[in-house]
């Protein structure tokens, strides 16, 4: 207690220098928290968007379906087994048929994926209702990115070409019924969404689907033979990996920033030991052991960490709270990185995140404060009293 009291007095006694050191560390803390919060928010938002718009509560895949191998698509479809059909009929799942195809906007061929989905499906949160067939031209739903890349707009007509099961090519014109704005790039890029029944009819695959998306919160029944269930964790793993990779990058940034703060403490400690040799000698003469002196100086350094936490809480918490409410505008081009995020990222700060960063900072501050005190262990009290270094 005495050591702590003395340490506190010594730190506060240095006046503006103490607060400058604390300010530097607090900046590192706040920026680190903001940074990690941004990654967490991105992760959370992306996962939620991906689940709401693409993955649902998991998917049953036809056994030959491999989303990373378009060549499997010719055979990756099968009639819906009764168990899955029942889910679809109950409105707890949506069937999707995926075929490889191409379009010819402005006379240029583009490879695409033709995806059939029931326009009235309630499972995935994107405007499938816009492709309700009304007996006129085949309605197609495309994403904003694809529309921009292919030079298509609402009302445009485009020729679709696909391969039938026998191997023959077939083609039909479709009208762009709606251009959707979505944060999930994987339902947008090079994809044309059509009414499921129409696509089944066009491809001569009545009642068949490539995958079945389960509604969120629905307990998944066992996968029927020939189908594989992929849960949300499996479907989100690429996304998680991507976020993790970004998190590593940000951690390096955090380490660099924190190191600058620690350098300030290290420097202060080294200087303090040098300037306060006589005081060290006096403390020893008054009955302090070397261990107590080392503890005192270490505590002084660690107190900068505590001051930084207090200071950081004073200005950082309101700032972080505001940021979490207002969000952070996503820079142009981020949407093409493969992460489904909205126009703004809303950082997510958990108690664990804040506590973790605070604890790591306090630990690192203490260790950094301890390192220069090894000098004290070598310092002879008689030399210290005369203001000399041993």
């Amino acid at each position: 207690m005495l050591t702590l009291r003395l340490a506190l007095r010594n730190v506060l006694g240095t006046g503006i220098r103490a607060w400058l050191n604390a300010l530097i560390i607090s900046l590192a803390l706040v920026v680190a928290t903001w940074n990690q919060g941004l990654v967490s928010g991105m992760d959370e938002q992306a996962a939620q968007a991906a689940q709401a718009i693409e993955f649902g509560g998991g998917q049953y895949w036809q056994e030959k379906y491999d989303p990373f191998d378009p060549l499997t698509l010719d055979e990756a479809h099968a009639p819906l087994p009764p168990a899955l059909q029942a889910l679809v009929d109950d409105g707890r799942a949506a069937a999707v048929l995926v075929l490889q195809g191409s379009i010819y906007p402005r006379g240029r061929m583009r490879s695409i994926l033709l995806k059939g989905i029931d326009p009235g499906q309630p499972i995935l949160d994107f405007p499938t209702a816009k492709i309700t067939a009304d007996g006129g031209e085949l309605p197609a739903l495309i994403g904003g990115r694809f529309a921009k890349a292919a030079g298509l707009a609402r009302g445009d007509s485009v020729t679709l070409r696909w391969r039938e099961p026998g191997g023959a090519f077939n083609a039909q014109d479709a009208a762009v019924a709606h251009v959707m704005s979505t944060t999930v790039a994987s339902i947008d890029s090079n994809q044309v969404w059509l009414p499921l029944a129409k696509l089944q009819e066009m491809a001569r695959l009545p009642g068949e689907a490539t995958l079945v998306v389960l509604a969120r919160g629905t307990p998944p029944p066992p996968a029927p033979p020939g189908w594989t269930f992929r849960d949300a964790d499996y479907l989100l793993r690429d996304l998680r990996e991507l976020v993790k990779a970004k998190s590593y990058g940000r951690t390096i940034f955090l380490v660099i920033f924190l190191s600058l703060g620690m350098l300030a403490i290290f420097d202060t400690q080294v200087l303090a030991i040098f300037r306060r040799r006589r005081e060290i000698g006096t403390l020893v003469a008054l009955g302090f052991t070397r261990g107590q002196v080392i503890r005192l100086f270490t505590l002084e350094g660690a107190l900068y960490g505590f001051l930084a936490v207090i200071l950081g809480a004073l200005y950082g918490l309101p700032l972080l709270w505001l940021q979490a409410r207002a969000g952070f505008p996503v820079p142009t081009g981020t949407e093409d990185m493969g992460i489904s995020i909205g126009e703004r990222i809303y950082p997510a700060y958990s108690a664990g995140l804040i506590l973790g960063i605070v604890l790591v900072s306090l630990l690192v501050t203490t260790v950094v404060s301890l390192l220069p005190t090894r000098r004290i262990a070598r310092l002879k009290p008689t030399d210290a009293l005369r203001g000399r270094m041993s």
Partner: protein
Amino acid sequence: MADEKLIRTENLVKIFPMGSSKVTALNRVTLSFQAGEFAGLVGPSGSGKTTFLNIVGTLDAPSSGSAFVLGRTVEGLSHREAAWLRNRSIGFIFQTFNLLPVYTAYENVEFPLLLLKTPAAQRRKMVMDALDWVGLADRARSRPAQLSGGESQRVAIARAMVKKPPLLLADEPTANLDAENSHHILQTMEKLNRQLATSFLFATHDEKVIGYLRRKITLVDGRVAGDENCRARGAEGTEPC
């Protein structure tokens, strides 16, 4: 080995390495001091006065020989035991006062009692008594930077005597003070010695201090060159130092 004398040294030797050579600061010094003495080590710079004080104060260990202080063998003490002995039984007064700069006069004097874990009420009384003794009760809230040299040294004396140690070691206590303050300080110390029976051992070459001593040990080149009892100021009998 326990010893009834306050301090006893036998063939005390202290050698300091100085680059590739060695300097003998104390050369077979054998001395003893009784409780209640007001004694001083005098001699030119480099004669070994401070070294002797440091060893007796358990801040340093001898190269060879023995030093017994308050019944304890200095060379056999661990760091912790030495700190404990200094904390309980030895008071230090330095040439440069060595007050803790962030503490007030009151807190500086209180510091040794905090180390001794003295209860708060008793501590307050002891601190105020000590400040009263040195005539600085009214400066209790002042910080060292706000005190004059004389006042600082009086606070240092209060800090050294607040725990009522049997032994006070003073290394050139008047070197940074003017004549008036020096006499004031020395009178305070003399009063302490008489009224509280605190033993004083000085290291000094200041004639003003020497004038107050009742025993003068002269050190030259680390050896005892003289040891004489002197008449206390105002007393009759022996010659003044």
